[in-house]
């Protein structure tokens, strides 16, 4: 069994290792390793299209993850205070947001936004006092919205689990010790759920940063990093893609490791 397990780990990491290895290839061919060189990183970093895509991805990932962390946490707390029936509706919707395939989320968001924009834009044009009425179109906003849907559900799930594990008693203890609800939230609840919120934020960031399929539909004229990588893979293979891929891997790897560290089990203060 050890041999099998070892094989699986090799299976999991060899492709990743190869991508990284070839990113340091001195040759221009992605398949023959000639010697070590960081030149492709230099090329990648001075590629303005790539940097633009990276910037877009970072903006989208940060914004959607931040919104997801804030609104998702609020929802997780708020749901505790809802009646059983309303809560079940929320649970169902959040579950749907997680289970519905990304490709459908992308399509549905595209269809809905195009319709909504088609309705709003003429109205805006009609009531706008200036010459250049603003036109709503696909772009940052739509990617953030679509990513935010999944990641908000993710954060809510994680934070809710933490709140459930928290127990009502320390909240009551704080209230018993003269802390008003807001103080209790700030001093007791928030520090306790903070690691989960941060972990949720990081996972949301990673998801958004890595997502291809949803952005593919709703990105409009904005290119995100995965869309750029996808296009590069199709167009041609130079180690520059490997350099980009390695950087993408490094970012998500770092984030997921931090998230795991934050979510590790802590010893419970019981006997």
């Amino acid at each position, binding site marked *: 069994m050890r041999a099998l397990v070892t094989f699986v780990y090799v299976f999991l990491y060899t492709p990743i290792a190869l991508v990284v290895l070839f990113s340091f290839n001195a040759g221009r061919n992605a398949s023959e390793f000639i010697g070590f060189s960081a030149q492709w990183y230099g090329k990648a970093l001075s590629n303005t299209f790539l940097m633009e895509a990276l910037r877009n991805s970072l903006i989208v990932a940060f914004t959607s993850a931040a919104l997801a962390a804030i609104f998702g946490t609020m929802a997780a707390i708020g749901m505790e205070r809802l009646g059983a029936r309303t809560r079940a509706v929320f649970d169902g919707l959040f579950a749907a947001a997680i289970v519905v395939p990304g490709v459908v989320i992308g399509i549905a968001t595209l269809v809905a936004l195009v319709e909504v924009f088609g309705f709003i834009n003429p109205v805006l044009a009609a009531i706008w006092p200036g010459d250049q009425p603003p036109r709503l179109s696909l772009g940052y906003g739509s990617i953030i919205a679509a990513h935010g849907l999944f990641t908000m559900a993710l954060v809510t799930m994680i934070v809710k689990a933490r709140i459930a594990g928290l127990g009502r008693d320390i909240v009551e*203890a*704080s209230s018993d010790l003269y802390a008003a609800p807001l103080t209790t939230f700030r*001093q007791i609840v928030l520090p*306790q759920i903070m690691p989960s919120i941060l972990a949720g934020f990081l996972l949301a960031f990673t998801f958004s940063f890595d997502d291809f399929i949803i952005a593919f539909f709703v990105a409009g004229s904005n290119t995100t990093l995965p869309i750029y990588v996808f296009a590069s893979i199709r167009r041609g293979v130079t180690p520059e893609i490997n350099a980009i891929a390695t950087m993408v891997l490094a970012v998500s790897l770092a984030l997921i490791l931090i998230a795991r560290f934050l979510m590790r089990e802590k010893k419970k*203060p*019981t006997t």
Partner: protein
Amino acid sequence: MASASTNDIEFRSVTKNYGPVTAVKDINLNVPKGAFLALLGPSGCGKTTCLRMIGGFEQPSEGAVLIDGREMNGVPAYRRPVNMVFQHYALFPHFNVEQNVAYGLKQMRPRIAAGDIDRRVAEALEMVRLDGFAKRRIYEMSGGQQQRVALARALVNRPSVLLLDEPLAALDKKLRSAMQIELQTLQRDLGITFVLVTHDQEEALSMADIVCVMSAGRIRQLGAPQEVYDHPADLFVADFVGKTNRIEAKLEAGGATLRLADGSAIPASKPVATDEAIVAIRPEAIRLSRERVANGASFQGVVTHRIFLGSSAEYAVNVPGLGDFLVTADRSTMNESDLVAPGDAVFLGFDPAAAHVFPASTA
């Protein structure tokens, strides 16, 4: 604090409903200042609900709870001059011991000077003998130590009432008895009203000076521990507080004589107005001997089991026609010849005056 009332806590016709379920039904209760009240009952009897209504974690559906003469309906927990020791202590895991204890003081308005807080925290920790543990993390402490932190955290605020929700349930037996004594001493020294919730009758009887036995949301008996034990108000109390042998009986001679199932008769300790009755007798009120005792009630039976308890022993004795009896015998008061073993034929005797007679309909 200037006192407006001689009662620290007062329940006025308090009812608490959770939807269709009534947890507490029409409770009236006065707890005088400085008393140590134990709310005793099986789980689901409403004792914890009562405690939580004092603490402000629940609001009564009907009636009112008063603390120090002031009606508390609608007053949230954080504005009540009471503190609670929670069942699983509910210590804040992200704070150390000192921060846990100081928490309540830091919330007080007007603010207490930092130096005063430090001094009071140190005093409180000293009081529960945890000086030197101030900087410890909670998860580094044993269960007993955590219990003391919880106690210090509540007492440091000098509440007028301390609420204890099964505070000793999580401790092992030895530690529990030590803490019982400690809590009693603390209560006497501080003069604070204590309200203890427990399902452990021994704990209630040993610590409290008023025991309130509850069942199904109602108070069954309220009184001093000895009174509750010796004069249970009904069969439930008799059963729940201490061990009891039950004998079914029919009343004769206008309620003066009890005719038992085996045909024998004993005089009733007090007249009962029904035909059918249950006679309740404590195991330690029964005397076990190899010979028939001349006066009082006496039955012959066979020892079926013996449970050795160190200073005492419990015997199960089967009496034909009446069933099994539980008898506790203190070894120091027993004759050598009375040490019996399973299979021995023995006589059970008791003073009819020590037997409580209840109408069978209350069983």
